[in-house]
């Protein structure tokens, strides 16, 4: 540890570096647009708000994913939980659309949680199976085509309308963020989550019902994915096949770039927030540069490796 990082705790350093990297992305993007178009759209509040609005969907997914990663598990069922919630919400319609969509997510989370916590199946494989089942159910439900049903007005209002120039989706993201922060910092459940992530056996011996907490975490993650699905369906006015596929890996990447340990037990929500903003801005700068998909993938991978090399390195094995 050098003196510069002494004043920072181990959890704060990644957040600071990721925040600095966001500035680098913004600066590089602005230099590019200025040189090429003579304008700086990246710095205009309208453009940034629009990007954040798109980022809100990823942000909500990442919030749920972070909870699950904190207990040392992972949820690979997010893509089709998200899509299933969106499809069921649009096909039910009416005032029940949003509650039904969210209920789907909570239910999937409950199944995941029971499988992981009580059957002790590794979450990697159980949630993978649940994802396949949800995909199967939705393919059977929709016949494999894009559903013809449309999002309800309330869903559209929540996702795309603005109040005082600020998109409603951002309010939803902010509300989810506040809930998660309060839960992690101010409740016993939050403490349990970190304890389980560090050593489940120790948490159990300390009297925590670790299996129940695990189930709750998966339920939260499923609920978050469903909320993102409902919002996304509102934003694009309909649900479609594979709408969640683009959210799984970026959500994991955002959580990890934000300094959360992939093995659990360590990480702050602020980091996840910054990780999401970083990924969203990186994507938008790359699309301004008209980077082909190939280049995006390469840069995407290199950025993750670079960020982790800077601050995400594990301990050396010593015993």
């Amino acid at each position, binding site marked *: 540890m050098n003196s510069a990082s002494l004043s920072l705790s181990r959890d704060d350093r990644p957040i600071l570096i990721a925040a600095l990297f966001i500035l680098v992305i913004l600066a590089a993007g602005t230099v590019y647009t200025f040189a090429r178009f003579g304008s700086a759209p990246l710095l205009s509040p309208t453009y940034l708000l629009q990007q954040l609005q798109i980022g809100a969907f990823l942000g909500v997914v990442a919030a749920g994913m972070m909870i699950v990663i904190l207990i040392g598990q*992972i949820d690979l069922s997010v893509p089709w939980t998200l899509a299933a919630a969106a499809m069921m919400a649009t096909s039910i319609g009416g005032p029940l659309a949003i509650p039904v969509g969210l209920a789907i997510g909570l239910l999937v989370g409950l199944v995941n949680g029971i499988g992981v916590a009580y059957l002790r199946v590794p979450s990697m494989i159980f949630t993978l199976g649940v994802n*396949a089942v949800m995909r*199967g159910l939705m393919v059977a439900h929709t016949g494999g085509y894009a559903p013809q049903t449309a999002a309800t007005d309330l869903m559209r209002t929540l996702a795309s309308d603005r109040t005082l120039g600020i998109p409603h989706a951002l309010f939803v993201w902010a509300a989810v963020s506040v809930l998660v922060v309060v839960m992690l910092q101010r409740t016993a459940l939050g403490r349990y989550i970190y304890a389980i992530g560090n050593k489940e056996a120790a948490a159990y011996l300390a009297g925590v019902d670790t299996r129940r907490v695990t189930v709750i975490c998966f339920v939260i993650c499923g609920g978050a994915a469903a909320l993102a699905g409902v919002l996304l369906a509102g934003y694009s006015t309909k649900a479609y096949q594979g709408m969640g596929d683009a959210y799984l890996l970026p959500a994991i990447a955002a959580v990890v770039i934000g300094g959360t340990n992939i093995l659990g037990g360590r990480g702050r929500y602020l980091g996840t927030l910054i990780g999401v903003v970083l990924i969203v801005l990186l994507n938008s700068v790359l699309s301004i540069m008209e980077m082909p998909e*190939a280049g995006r993938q390469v840069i995407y*991978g*290199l950025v*993750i490796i670079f960020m982790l090399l800077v601050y995400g390195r594990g301990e050396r094995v010593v*015993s």
Partner: protein
Amino acid sequence: MLDDVAIKVRQNVGIVTAVLLFSILYVLYNLAHPRGFSSAVLVQNGNEIFALAMVAMAQTVPVLASGLDLSVGAVMTMVGCFASYLLTGAAAGAPLHLDIFGLHLALGTFPGGITGILLGIVLCLAIGTAAGFINGCVVVYGRIQPIIATLATGAVYIGIALFLRPTPGGKIDEDLNWALTNSLGDFAATVHIFDDGAAGWFAPIAWIPVPFVLIVLIALLVWVPFRRSVLGRAVYAVGSAEGAAYMSGLPIDRAKIAAFTLAGFFAGCGGLFLAIQTSSGNADIPQAGAYTLNSIASVVIGGTSLLGGTGSAIGSIFGAMVLRVISFFFRIFDIAPLLQPLFEGLILLAAVSIGALGVLRVKNTLELFR
């Protein structure tokens, strides 16, 4: 003697279950198939199984070292895209060029004929191995968790594949395609050995599909020696207790790098075959993802613990075959294609849940939290 067998069976209960499950399913499949137990059906199945079996073997090695390689599908795809440039079967002296961003990069000329094909195959496998080696170095020297490190390198490899083949295309030498995706008899006839496959002694084995022979050869010539080497044992040791392995003086860094490198090699074999079989290179991101996920499922069905330390790549081959045979059944029994994903998911869930029922017998709850 019987006790020994019983112990062996108990130690390998995962792989034994996978083999039994596969045998039962496959016999049932052939009984139900109108042309069951014929070489044609076997050849078709072998071609469908090969790539997944290779990717499953690839996934096994890092899993044994309690890592996870999320880039196996990406490496497979990337090697396939390279193969569609390197194995076109162009005549000697034909310029080898890569198309990137509309640029023609001339990379010298290519020797034609058998030499060219063999050189191309070696190059493709070397590319896969190198990709695995890079994974290993990022994990060991970068000290980044394997799951997230390979997630990132996988994105890079897919990016390279997309650079090579923004749209599906390319070409594979037709003789190579024919020789490797049919029965041994066709192979012999194509490469003109054993009197073009008409030799008397050759007839009884001429029906065996080449892909199955290749799987057995790769397992026997690559996996078995590796498992018996010091590095192979070190991989198992790292997976069951890394600290203990380190204190025992085992080369844990080299073991991990070897595990990922071998994974790259196996994934390269899968990609090479997939390109040869489809006669094209295709940077298909959803397909790469599906192969990665199915490789994890195959590993688990094949009796390897995701926690590391126990299991074997042979089991994963059977795991992959079980997964594939299940999808063969959909063709036979005319199940609506729309229901297939649902059944595949349910069967996977059922398999892992039944395997997990042992937790109900655990008396000391503390033992659950390993």
